[in-house]
């Protein structure tokens, strides 16, 4: 359909809720509900994890200058800090990715742009999460 025709000299803008072949099907899942809830719950946990992380890394015991290979190796010898970092990595990445997914949904104008931006986001998220997890679990303090 062309943008203008004789009966419609104004630009023809498809009515947003008109049912067409491209209209998304109703999903009938609880995905958005769980997503919304996840943002709230992970947010609360992240406040503790991230602020604790920043406090330990940047403030206590001589601040940022103490951080080195030995410092990281020492921390990751303990399963507690492994778990802390692992949970923080997963929650922060999923929280941030879901937030960006929302931003893309809200701001991307064209379907194509939206799709590719989200693909880029998902790829980056999966890559970072997997790489981080791999490092936390296979970290070798004796590496040369």
């Amino acid at each position, binding site marked *: 359909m062309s943008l*203008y025709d004789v009966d419609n*000299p*104004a*630009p023809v803008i498809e*009515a947003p*809720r008109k049912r067409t072949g491209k209209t998304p099907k109703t999903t*009938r899942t609880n995905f*958005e509900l769980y997503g919304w809830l996840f943002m709230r719950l992970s947010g609360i946990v992240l406040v503790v994890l991230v602020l604790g992380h920043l406090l330990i890394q940047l403030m206590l015991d001589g601040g940022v200058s103490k951080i080195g290979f030995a410092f990281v190796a020492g921390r990751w010898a303990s399963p507690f800090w492994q778990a802390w970092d692992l949970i923080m990595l997963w929650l922060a990445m999923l929280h941030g990715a879901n937030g960006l997914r929302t931003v893309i949904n809200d*701001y991307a104008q064209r379907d194509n742009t939206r799709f590719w931006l989200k693909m880029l986001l998902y790829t980056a998220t999966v890559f970072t999460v997997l790489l981080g997890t791999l490092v936390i679990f296979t970290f070798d303090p004796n590496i040369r």
Partner: protein
Amino acid sequence: MSSPTLEKHSAALDAAENTASENITVTFRIRRFNPEVSEEATWQDFQLELDPKERVLDGLHKIKWDQDGTLTFRRSCAHGICGSDAMRINGKNRLACKTLIKDINPEKPITVEAIKGLTVLKDLVVDMEPFFQAYRDVMPFLVTKGNEPTRERRQSAEDRERFDDTTKCILCAACTSSCPVFWNDGQYFGPAAIVNAHRFIFDSRDEAGEQRLEILNDKDGVWRCRTTFNCTDACPRGIEVTKAIQEVKRALITRRF
């Protein structure tokens, strides 16, 4: 006729009459769009004499009747009930028939444009169909099972109070067309549809609350709300729209867990 109250009253009336003639010159800057003339919308200024106690709608009438008959806008009751004349006045969604000139700083030009997010047909008239489609989608009617009772369906005052706020909606679209999510993606149901779903979801007599919640649980349902409160600010009826949306979200969560 010499009772003190009456005299005071007439004194007040005199005062009102004295100020009644204090017309001021107001500039209306109106976003004009006529697809038969140009595909571009343009701003046009109109100067008119108005009493500051008059409404924006009176100004629009004066322009249409005395200056430019082609100015196109919707209005029906002109008293804030029918919801026809929602428009963007000085950048905020309001009803032209409830906005007094003195309340919006008449010293500067008053900008009037069509509400956003819906296709403009001409001047201040937009295509309301997508808005009403979203409204229809949430089944805005009483759904009950079984035989009709022989008298009215009773309800306690508390049960009525539960959804009192959302019964006030006049479907003017001021809220939906102030919502940034709706501007960008018209598939979002929009605040007005959710308000009208809320009105039945929390009605103790209604039995289709589950269905409506299921509809609003959809990808384009309540979860797209970003709680920017634009809708609450825009509502000419003072409905706490964002609160109603949050209550629907809470109902969805508590239903699930």
